[in-house]
Every structure is written in structure tokens, then in C-alpha cells.
């Protein structure tokens, strides 16, 4: 015998199917393995004897499996031995090669202890006769109750499940053992079948093999398994169900990746900003479409709205959607949120909300202006996860991503990346990227914050199209609008947001502008780009990167160049700096933001009369940013808004700019130009 091979194979070449594994582990526990995993030889011997094989075979089995050589039965040896026993019972020679065969489970007659394992065997006994024994060999029921050891020939499918109900004492007289066995067998088989079906394992195979083997090797053939089968099946199924339930607990209540992606898309269709909430009314209309009864929907809402605010965050939305999906597929609604649904998301959820806040801080810190986190979030959403190591790249990507995101088709990854990036904003985008990437989709929320952060650091890609410096809500709304408009322009113009852009207030303005770029039509983008570009060239000071950005922006949006006032705009940007930088950051991360920046751009300038020197630098940066933003999107809106705002603000400074402001982008430029001059 190849004891060595046997031993080696103990773990290597033995492939146990599900039933075998269960059975064997049951037997293993039955044999009371000691701490080292070795089985007590006494119990093993007992088990072997129960297999009703001649002692010679048993010795051979022991030899082959390697236990003899080792002197004890380790787990691999035990399993090999079991397989060999099965082979022997099936009539195959006891050799290692036999182990690889697909054997039925070894049959052991009347193992006293088999507690839960042999449950299957027990109960059906009473029924016996019935026979549907699909399989010729009756199933040997372990049930301790049946001391009808004659079972031994039967194969007892070891269903670990405790088919307690099946354990009816086997007081049946000998004749019935056959039926009993068959019953058990069928029962087990059925159970196995159901189990298998549940697990997707072809139980038929072992069953068939059992039949085959059992028939020839059975001392008695138990033809009547039918009725047993019936009873067994039900019990087996119950057991299966139990086991299945646990198993299914994870499955239906765990959201898979595809599901998550789908949910995200749905969420975006309702609310493009992943970080925002879906209002109750909106959610109601949406979920009502699922045709579930209202009370159930109400219950689902109760389960999923964990913070009880009457609105759904992204995670809550996923939870609700998942529950609806589960319900539609027939799963009963749980009374409380399943653990796999809730804690996971809660964890992620926690991370998400944190990031925006952190972003906020970052923004404030860098830009000295608080850009509405919402805006950031919006930007983040748009931001694509694919950050390049540099912030600029990130911004670019984000901008592009934003544009795509706006379409609501953005990949979640992007979002995630963006989200991840968001919290890290202050840090180099590169850091954000890896972090974001590591995050799973649900993290997208946080990534947006990271992206935002990044954007700010680099230079807010597109200042939120907020007309004024009102950060927070206003900008976010603008962003949304901008985003929705699409950010075609962003991509074109605003490439790598100037990471170097210092988080000056001016830059904040720019980012604002940049944020909106998603949808900023090229034209508009061009204008700002143009403006930025020109300004940047003129300045060529600190914003090397902004230059790059501006160039990027510029190219796509050369149209707007008429902004002689670009400089003015830039200067205006400076004024708006506090907002812009933040925006820029977003922009960098998500080009979509470009759309927003324009308004922001206009906004800041009027608001702040930054010092000339700083403003110049800011202008450069801002210009680049603004350009990008504009290119991205929303220029139209932003422009109008900015124009209005600019007019209002500029009127205080220079009324002339207001006229320039007529041009979407140009308005800002002119203002900046003025400031510079």
C-alpha cells in the first residue's frame, strides 16, 4: 500500500463532496478526536467494525490510509479510511486509487453514538414500507434508536442535520429493517437531494452511486424506500431548510456588487448626488413602482431609515432597495434589519458621512472658505475614482468622471474613488486614490469627500455655480444643476487641475467653477479656459499647474476667449478665491464641477477684493480653474447667475464688469482683468 501516498493523499487528493464531508466530519466528531485532531483509535476501531467489513479489509484500510504507519488516525487518514471503507463496501478494492472514485458514503451499522449525524436514519423507520425507495439500498439509519443494526448494509446518508423527527425507535422487526433502511436511505437521500439542490451539489451522483454500490454490496436490498423517502424527504427538507436558512441568511440579505451598482444607478437617477438624501416623497414614489403593498413598503421604510430622518441616504436607499428586491423574490420581510444588511452599511455609512465633514474642514482650512460639503459631494460623485497620482490628474479625472457621472452612468468606482479622495483632500490626491480604490463601492461616499479635498488642494476644478459665496447649499444646488446639464466641457478644457494651486481663497473660487464643469458646454468652458489661460500666461507665477489646467481648459474652450476680461475674471476669481479653491479642488477631482465654478467665480470676485499680488496669483489659478469649470458645464447657468451676481457685486466695484459679465465666463474675467490692471 502506498501508505505514504495514502498519508499524503490524506489531504491532497481526496476530494469529498458535500455529503461526504459532512458525513466524515460527523464521523470524525463521533470518534472523539483529541485535541491534536487525532481520533481515538478505540472509536475508530468501533467505527470500522460498524462498517461490517471483514477485519482483513479493515486492516487494509488502516494500512492504506496511513494510520497504521503513523500509529494514529489523523484527520486526513480518517477521511481516507472512510473513503476506503466506502470503497470496500462498494466492492472496490481497498486501494488509494479507490479513494478518488466517487463513492457512496460508507455505511456503518448501528453506531451507537452518532448523535446528530444519523438522525436521518432514525425516524423514518416507522414508516418503512412505503417504498419509494428510489434507491435500491435502503438507507441505513444511524439513529441510535435503531438497534436494528441490520441496517449496516444500508447506506446511511449522513445528514448532519438532525432529523430528530426521523429517529423513531427502530423497534421494527427484522423484516422492516429493509424498508426502514430503505426508508432512511431514501430519506437521507431526499434530504441529501434537497440539501444538494440547495447547495447546488448534484446529490444524484452520490445517490446513484449509493444505489449502485449498495445494490451489489448490500446484504439486503431494500427495495422499499419509497415511503421512507417521502417521509425522509420532508424531514430532510426541513433540516435542509434549517441549514439553508442560515445559509440563506447571508445570501438574500447581503448585497452583491452588481446589486450595489444597480442600486447606485437607481439612486443617481433619483438624486445625482450620492451624498445627498432622497426625500421621503421621492422615495415613496419610486418604491411604489415596485408594486409592493403599501404596508410592506412602510415596513421596509421603517427598517431602512435607520436614522429616522424621513429621508434616505445612499446606504439606507440600498438597504431599502435590497429589501424590496428580496421581498419581490419571495423572501419574507424581516422584523429587524438583518445583520448583513445593516452593520456593513452602517460602517460604511459612518465613513461616508465623516468624509464630507472632513472635507469641509479641509476646505475651510485650505481655502479659508467653507465650501458646502454638498457641493463637494456632488463633485465627488462626479469624480472618477481613477485618480492619477497627481492632484491634477485627479482633478482631470474627476472632472471627466464628473461629466460622465452626471450622466448617471458614471461607474460607481469613480464615485468611490472620488469619495475616497474626498476625505483626503488636503493630502495629495495620490493618497486619496489608493484609499479610494481600496474602498468598495459603498465607500463611494467617502471618496467623494476625498476628491473634494483633493480638488481643493489642487484647485477647485469648478467652483460651484453658486452665484454668491454662499457655500453650502447654494453651491451644491448649483453643482447639481451643473452636473445635470452635463459636463462636456470639463473634460475638454480642464485637465489636471493645478494641484499646485494653493488653497487660496481665490482657488476656492475656481474650484467652485470647476465643479460645475461636468456639463459645462464646451463653449462655456472654453471661455473660462481661455480666460484662465490667458491670465495664467500673463501671470505665470505660482500656478504652473494652473497653467496646465488652464491650457487644458483653454483648448476646449477657446471660444469664450473673448474675455479680455479674463484677467478681470481672474481677479474676480481671486476675490472669490475663498470659494474657488475649494471648488477647484473638487474640480480637479471631478471635472464635472466645472459647471459650478463659473458661478462661483463670479461670486467671489465681487465679494472679495483680494490684494493685488495675491489676487494675481489667485487669478492665475482661478482662471485656470474657472476655465475648466466652465468648460465642464453649467456655464450657461453659471454665467447667468454669475452675471447677475457679478453685476451686483461689481457694481460696487466697477460697473463696467457687469457688462462683461454678460458673457458667461467673460464676466468674471473682466472683473479679474480689472483687478489686475
Amino acid at each position, binding site marked *: 500500500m502506498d501508505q505514504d501516498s495514502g498519508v499524503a493523499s490524506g489531504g491532497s487528493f481526496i476530494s469529498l463532496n458535500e455529503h461526504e464531508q459532512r458525513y466524515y466530519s460527523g464521523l470524525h466528531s463521533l470518534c472523539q478526536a483529541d485535541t491534536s485532531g487525532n481520533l481515538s483509535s478505540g472509536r475508530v476501531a468501533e467505527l470500522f467494525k460498524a462498517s461490517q467489513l471483514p477485519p482483513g479489509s479493515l486492516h487494509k484500510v488502516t494500512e492504506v490510509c496511513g494510520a497504521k504507519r503513523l500509529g494514529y488516525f489523523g484527520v486526513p487518514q480518517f477521511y481516507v479510511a472512510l473513503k476506503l471503507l466506502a470503497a470496500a463496501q462498494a466492492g472496490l478494492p481497498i486501494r488509494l486509487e479507490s479513494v478518488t472514485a466517487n463513492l457512496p458514503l460508507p455505511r456503518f451499522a448501528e453506531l451507537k453514538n452518532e448523535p446528530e449525524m444519523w438522525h436521518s436514519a432514525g425516524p423514518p423507520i416507522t414508516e418503512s414500507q412505503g417504498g419509494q425507495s428510489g434507491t435500491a439500498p435502503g438507507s441505513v439509519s444511524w439513529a441510535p434508536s435503531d438497534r436494528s443494526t441490520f441496517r449496516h448494509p444500508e447506506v446511511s446518508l449522513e445528514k448532519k442535520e438532525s432529523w430528530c423527527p426521523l429517529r423513531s425507535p427502530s423497534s421494527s422487526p427484522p423484516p422492516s429493517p429493509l424498508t426502514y433502511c430503505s426508508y432512511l436511505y431514501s430519506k437521507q437521500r431526499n434530504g441529501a437531494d434537497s440539501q444538494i439542490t440547495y447547495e447546488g451539489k448534484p446529490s444524484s451522483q452520490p445517490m446513484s452511486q449509493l444505489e449502485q454500490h449498495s445494490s451489489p454490496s448490500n446484504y439486503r436490498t431494500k427495495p422499499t424506500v419509497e415511503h421512507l423517502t417521502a417521509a425522509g424527504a420532508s424531514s430532510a427538507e426541513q433540516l435542509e431548510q434549517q441549514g439553508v436558512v442560515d445559509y440563506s441568511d447571508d445570501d438574500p440579505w447581503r448585497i452583491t456588487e452588481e446589486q450595489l451598482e444597480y442600486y447606485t444607478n437607481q439612486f443617481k437617477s433619483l438624486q445625482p448626488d450620492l451624498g445627498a438624501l432622497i*426625500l*421621503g*416623497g421621492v*422615495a*415613496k414614489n419610486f*418604491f*411604489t413602482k415596485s408594486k409592493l403593498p*403599501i*404596508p410592506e*413598503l*412602510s*415596513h421596509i*421604510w*421603517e427598517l431602512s*431609515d435607520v436614522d*429616522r*430622518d*424621513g429621508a434616505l441616504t445612499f446606504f439606507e436607499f440600498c438597504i431599502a432597495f435590497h429589501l424590496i428586491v428580496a421581498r419581490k423574490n419571495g423572501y419574507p420581510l424581516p*422584523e429587524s434589519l438583518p445583520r448583513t444588511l445593516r452593520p456593513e452599511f452602517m460602517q460604511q455609512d459612518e465613513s461616508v458621512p465623516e468624509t464630507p465633514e472632513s472635507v469641509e474642514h479641509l476646505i475651510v482650512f485650505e481655502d479659508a472658505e467653507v465650501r458646502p460639503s454638498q457641493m463637494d459631494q456632488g463633485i465627488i460623485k462626479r469624480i472618477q475614482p481613477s485618480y492619477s497620482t497627481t492632484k491634477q490628474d485627479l482633478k482631470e479625472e474627476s472632472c471627466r468622471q464628473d461629466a460622465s457621472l452626471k450622466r448617471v452612468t458614471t461607474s460607481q468606482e469613480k464615485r468611490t474613488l472620488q469619495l475616497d479622495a474626498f476625505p483626503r483632500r488636503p493630502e495629495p490626491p495620490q493618497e486619496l486614490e489608493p484609499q479610494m480604490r481600496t474602498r468598495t463601492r459603498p465607500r463611494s461616499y467617502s471618496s467623494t469627500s476625498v476628491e473634494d479635498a483633493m480638488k481643493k488642494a489642487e484647485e477647485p476644478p469648478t467652483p460651484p455655480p453658486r452665484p454668491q459665496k454662499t457655500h453650502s447649499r447654494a453651491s451644491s444646488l448649483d453643482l447639481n444643476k451643473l452636473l445635470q446639464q452635463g459636463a462636456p466641457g470639463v473634460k475638454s478644457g480642464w485637465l489636471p487641475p493645478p494641484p499646485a494651486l494653493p488653497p487660496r481663497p481665490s482657488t476656492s473660487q475656481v474650484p467652485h467653477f470647476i465643479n460645475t464643469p461636468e456639463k459645462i458646454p464646451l463653449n462655456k468652458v472654453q471661455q473660462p479656459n481661455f480666460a484662465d489661460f490667458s491670465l495664467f500666461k500673463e501671470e505665470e507665477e505660482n500656478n504652473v499647474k494652473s497653467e496646465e489646467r488652464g491650457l487644458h481648459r483653454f483648448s476646449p474652450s477657446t471660444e469664450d476667449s473673448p474675455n479680455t476680461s479674463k484677467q478681470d475674471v481672474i481677479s474676480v476669481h481671486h476675490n472669490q478665491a475663498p470659494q474657488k479653491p475649494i471648488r477647484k479642488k473638487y474640480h480637479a477631482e471631478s471635472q464635472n464641477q466645472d459647471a459650478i465654478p463659473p458661478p462661483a467665480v463670479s461670486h467671489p470676485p465681487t465679494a472679495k477684493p483680494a490684494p493685488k499680488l495675491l489676487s494675481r496669483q489667485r487669478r492665475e489659478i482661478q482662471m485656470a480653474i474657472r476655465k475648466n469649470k466652465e468648460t465642464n458645464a453649467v456655464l450657461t447657468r453659471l454665467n447667468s447667475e454669475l452675471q447677475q451676481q457679478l453685476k451686483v457685486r461689481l457694481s460696487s466695484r466697477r460697473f463696467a464688469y457687469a457688462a462683461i459679465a454678460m458673457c458667461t465666463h467673460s464676466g468674471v474675467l473682466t472683473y479679474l482683468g480689472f483687478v489686475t490692471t
Partner: protein
Amino acid sequence: MAVCIAVIAKENYPLYIRSVPTQNKLKFHYTVHTSLDVVEEKVSTVGKSLGDQRELYLGLLYPTEDYKVYGYVTNSKVKFVIVVDSSNTSLRDNEIRSMFRKLHNSFTDVMCNPFHNPGDPIQSKAFDGIVSGMMVQTG
């Protein structure tokens, strides 16, 4: 431990009534209904300053030989009525207040549910759970 808990809408029709099943429900319905008059009277006398929890809690509306009725009104004129057994003297005012607070919180959760139309009877399992927790745990 309450014997009966009721939520009355602003228009004085019940949104939710739940009593200990051993007793005659009708009796409790009647009791709650009559308590509404007392609530109205108290509300009118309490004053205009709203928002103060103390004023939301109306206290003992009226005792009868069998039980005591406590009232609580929200800012939207939704009334909560708790009927407790008179023999249950261990219940202090604070406990009643906390019961009302819990009821109110649970009620707001129900209201936040977009699938719930204000004015409809309350059919929330969570709300039922809260109420069950407060009812007398008798078979």
C-alpha cells in the same frame, strides 16, 4: 404598565387604540372618548406657550374607580391617552411621562415614513412593538 393606549388624531378620531385584550375593548374606547373632553379643556387652559414638554404632558385627566387616565398632546394636536389600572399604584408620574415620550418618538417615526399618510390608522410594526412593551403583560 398601561391597560389601554390610544392615539387620537387632531380631528378627534382614533388613529390607534390598543387595549389589554382581557378587558372589554368597548369600555376603553368609551373611556378614551370621554377623556377627550378633558383634554380639550386642559389644552385650552394650559396656554399658548407650546413646545414645552411639560405642557405636552397633561397629567392625570381623571381618575375613576377602576383606572386612571393620563393625557398628552403634541404640537399638532395629536393626543395620546394612556389608561392605567388604578390598582397599579407603583406607576409614578415620571414613568408615565417616559411612556408618553416613547410614544411620541415612535409616533414621529411613523409620521416620517413616507408611506404613511397622516390621518390613516397607524399600522407600524415598530409602533406596535413599542406599545406592546408598555401594555400590561397579561395574557
